[in-house]
């Protein structure tokens, strides 16, 4: 099995060296990207790096050709929608598709999926997660893998993979509310997944050094308003009223990120227990601090799905 986790500024990838997980020793590596954010150069760079990673996998004589991926959360839309109960599957699909297509530009360039989450009896509503990703990014990943003879089997979103890791490490269902924050650099997208009152919400925003906040998406703006986001950025976690709060970052060397991580060191995700359960090794240089380790949260979540 091979894993590749793409983030804004780096790619973490790993290879499993034996067929059976009982005697597996897997290794993870990291490549830094030269540019990010601008989708045009990002796609070009991703393609180039994937080619060299697949060549590397080849040289390592893989025992199988399956490969799983995560992509950065800010390359996709994460939406939570309600639909009234009793609709046929195709009607649900139509309603949810329509909502995305009427709210996003160039929706024909998006690959859209909907996942049933739960049913709320009291309001006669069904809740769905909608994920919309650039078709081009999905195609580049799949086609590059195929062109090197690898079999793409799974494509997840970074923050949802980190959530997967948490659900393997903590009894999340036992908490009344919890939050998961992927801390980005200044002027980069901050991603937040929040669970409250039995429902999940997604918030993405940008903050600069003066902590001015630009909201890009907020599926519950009434509860998680600008004051909430300001408290978050100012490290006033006590005011957020979460039973559990988790943070991680794929940019651990950035000062803006470090400030927030250092102030909330006890909340940093530790993916090592899960990685060690799956006998996955990380280079020693990344193990020196909690912050450096947390960048492996997304790939650890991905690995834990197999």
């Amino acid at each position, binding site marked *: 099995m091979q894993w590749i986790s793409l983030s804004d500024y780096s790619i973490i990838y790993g290879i499993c060296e034996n067929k059976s997980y009982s005697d597996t020793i897997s290794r993870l590596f990291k490549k830094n990207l030269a540019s990010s*954010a*601008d*989708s*045009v150069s990002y796609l070009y760079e991703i393609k180039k790096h994937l080619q060299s990673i697949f060549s590397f996998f*080849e040289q390592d*004589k893989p025992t199988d050709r399956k490969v799983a991926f995560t*992509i950065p959360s*800010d390359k996709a*839309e994460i939406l939570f929608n309600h639909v009234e109960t009793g609709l046929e*599957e*195709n009607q*649900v*699909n139509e309603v949810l598709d329509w909502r995305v297509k009427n*709210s*996003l*530009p*160039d929706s024909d*360039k998006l*690959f*859209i*999926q*909907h*996942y*049933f*989450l739960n049913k709320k009896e009291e309001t006669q509503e069904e809740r769905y*997660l909608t*994920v919309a*990703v650039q078709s081009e990014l*999905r*195609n580049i990943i*799949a*086609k590059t893998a*195929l062109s*090197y*003879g690898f079999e793409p*089997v*799974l*494509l*997840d*979103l970074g923050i*949802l993979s980190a959530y*997967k890791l948490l*659900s393997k490490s903590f009894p999340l*269902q036992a908490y009344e509310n919890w939050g998961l924050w992927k801390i980005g650099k200044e*002027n980069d*997208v901050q991603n937040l997944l929040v*669970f409250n009152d*039995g429902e*999940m919400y997604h918030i*993405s925003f*940008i903050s*600069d050094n003066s902590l*001015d906040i*630009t*909201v*890009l*998406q*907020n599926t519950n*703006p009434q509860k998680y308003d600008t004051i909430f986001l300001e408290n978050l950025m100012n490290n006033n976690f006590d005011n957020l009223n979460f039973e559990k709060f988790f943070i991680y970052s794929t940019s651990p060397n950035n000062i803006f990120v470090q400030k927030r991580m250092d102030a909330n060191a006890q909340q940093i995700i530790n993916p090592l227990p899960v990685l060690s359960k799956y006998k996955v090794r990380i280079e020693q240089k990344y193990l020196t601090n909690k912050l450096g380790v947390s960048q492996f949260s997304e790939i650890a979540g991905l690995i834990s*799905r197999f």
Partner: protein
Amino acid sequence: MSISINLFNNKGLQTEDSFLDIPQSDVLIPQSPVIKGDVTDENKKKFDEIKKDLDSKILADEKNKRKNKDKKRLNAGVFFSFFLILLIGAGILYLFNYTNIPNKVFDKLSQWKTNGKFNETPKTDRDSGFGLPENYVTSEIVNQIIEKSKDLSLISGILELLPENVQIMDFYIKNDNLSLICLVKDIISGENIKFYIYNHKDSFKPELFYIEKTEDEKNYQITSLSNILVNPVTDHKYIYLEDRQLTGYLTATANQSGVEMEPLTISKRDPALIRSGFIYLTGSKSSIVHFFRSLSSKRINISYDEMEIKSPDTSSAKTVYDIKIGITIFPQK
């Protein structure tokens, strides 16, 4: 709640019958026996040959793609120029056929225009966007982004002074020119706006301002024409947002302000180009003020070049307004 997504599955609603739906590869890079099996000189030579052949194919393919892209850009440029001419033509026609404006005001507007007041506006960096290479963001453009954000704040100031039930016949901002024609019930609102424009000497150069009773003597008509002045920009920071994020930001801001926004329309798809777009909104005066104030506090990769605010139906007493904002979207630096 358990969430396990797989974006390699088929699109649409995921059910028990969902299946892997992988896009097929265009070029299959041959699996070399050299890598999988033992390394022999013969195999290695064969592998090197295949790799060389493949590399040259990829290179040729890239070159072709680049050529096609350049051609497309040229075509897009010609089309854009044609579109611009059409747009200007339509704009002129629109001005001359604007029947809602009483003749007296219309005469003044056209007189102002004929006198070349619009043309006399000092040429500034803010107009230079379209003359630049399509994928190049200069500091002048950044100035334009910042200056136009400030315009929104100035416009919010005027809107705030207007009463909630004002009948806006024409509130139009383009090329640093601002025109406002509206009907109000009392003279105080008119005086307040006059005071605001004449006291923001750094921001406005008033060309014409008068308040007069309408023929039916029920309302006062405010007519104001001014130039918006350019001030030196000291802070050059701005945030780049992709189209999807841009829409997210505008929609979130609109929701927060209580204005209804239609999906953002963008002229071209290639984010490497300087592109135009339109934002269409409906909202109450206070929600529009809130929306403009929120937008003006952010520096993102768009400039608000043209703005039009109107009462949707001049005969009704509705207090919602239609807004159209013409924007320019800039690529990343």
